[in-house]
């Protein structure tokens, strides 16, 4: 498993374009912080940095991690990979997860920009529980990337879909305003989406003196597990269809 991750990260660092979302997206927090400063709401800096972090991680997963399988197809390594006795689905999952995990430092980056570039107060609550939530979120986002990978294999012109999976998801995930503020039918959907729980738990954990939201953390764990299971099973099924010749791999 480590070999899969190491090999993939080596490939990734050789193509600077693939790291662009990770390098530039966190800078959206500069735009957000400018708004906070103008309206004198410096106390919302931590909450906003969390939103920018989740936004960056999701975009990185959708635009880079989910393309792992499409890159293999493009480079002609998908077919030989599926013919080898090695577990390609597992390898792919590890590669997608390790790519998604590269976005974790963005949280520190956003908080540092808030503190040192804007001079905002940054409040950190429970660091261990925050780290647990960040890891859970990473696993969940990687699970979602596995689902997007399926689309990349099955649908021609999936780039439009990739684009459509950004801002609508940020709204649904309550990355700026909690999902509880969404209108009724959307709120129900958001409650079944792990990202909205991630955002809520991460925000709640930064409130000094507030009790740990252990119940919400439990719900998040269950939703993340479900997301990963669905992603993995869907990818395995799609790859089985590809092996059986059910999908045209080349135009």
């Amino acid at each position, binding site marked *: 498993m480590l070999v899969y991750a190491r090999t993939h990260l080596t490939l990734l660092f050789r193509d600077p374009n693939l790291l662009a979302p990770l390098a530039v997206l966190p800078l959206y927090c500069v735009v957000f912080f400018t*708004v906070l400063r103008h*309206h004198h709401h410096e106390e919302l800096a931590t909450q906003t940095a969390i939103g920018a972090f989740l936004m960056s991680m999701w975009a990185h997963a959708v635009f880079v991690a989910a393309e792992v399988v499409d890159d293999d197809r493009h480079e002609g390594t998908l077919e030989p990979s599926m013919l080898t006795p090695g577990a390609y689905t597992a390898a792919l999952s590890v590669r997608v997860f390790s790519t998604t995990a590269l976005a974790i430092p963005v949280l520190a980056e956003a908080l540092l920009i808030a503190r040192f570039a804007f001079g905002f107060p940054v409040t950190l609550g429970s660091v261990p529980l925050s780290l647990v939530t960040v890891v859970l979120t990473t696993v969940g986002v990687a699970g979602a990337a596995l689902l997007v990978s399926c689309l990349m294999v099955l649908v021609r012109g999936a780039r439009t879909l990739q*684009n459509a999976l950004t*801002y609508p998801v940020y709204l649904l995930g309550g990355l700026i305003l909690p999902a509880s*503020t969404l209108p009724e039918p959307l709120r129900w959907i958001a409650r079944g989406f792990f990202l909205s729980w991630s955002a809520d738990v991460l925000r709640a954990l930064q409130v000094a003196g507030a009790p740990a939201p252990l119940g919400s953390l439990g719900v998040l764990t269950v939703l993340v597990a479900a997301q990963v299971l669905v992603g993995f099973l869907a990818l395995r099924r799609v790859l089985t269809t590809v092996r059986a010749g059910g999908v045209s791999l080349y135009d």
Partner: protein
Amino acid sequence: MTSQERTSARLSAAARQIGYGVISSYHDYRAMFTWRSWVGGWLLRLTCQVLFFATLGKLMADPGAEAYIALGNAAVLGPLGTLGVVSSSVGERRSGTLQYLLVSRANPLLVIASRGLYWVADGIITSCAVLTIMSVLIPGTVHSGALPGILAIEVLLALCAYAMSLALASLSLRRPGSRMYLTASTTIIILALAGVNTPPPAGGPWGVIGQLLPVRHGLQAIRELAAGRPLPVGLVAGELAVALGWAVLAYTGLTLTLRRNTRSGALSLS
């Protein structure tokens, strides 16, 4: 042939090249979207993008902040959309057509500029569509009678930003790996300094940079119209001057890049 006839022939040749560029541009666009993917994917995404930034205004609990941010972000969709040409121009190198373009008798600058016009058209259409949607979803965003005037300024904003995008394309044609960084960092600079989410910085180095950016003046003019006030001619003239400046920079940049790439042989297979 008299000099008048020569000028007329040149103009007619240029118009024909632009015409072919527009046709090619239209087919490139058709290859990207179907009606369903445009409405259900692209337009939905852009609408949600504006709503997402507007939620930041809602979070500020400041009356008017939500509408201010919604208007700014809807109007800036067109200018930001034109940044697509920074990546699509690299396609000329990737597909190996740049070298043929350079040995042909056609003017390569006209071809590159006209082939990316679909980004301008898409930007104007999506911007106006989202602005109309916002006027319904977020009361106070736009005074309904102002929409036709806003459309006219939106065309100017998109053309001004297109000139800047072509200037940036002169960099991406040199170094194709830079295209994502150029597009993303320019987006953030415009969102932060052109008065999209907060009033633009009035002075200091950020204020000066803001004055030279597309959108800065035109968006202020749109805000005046949206509030039901008369058209501020000075702001429109300011945007026009910025557009001309960027057009000169785009012409110079692209000319130098194509000369350099020809000399170094960096014409294809980026």
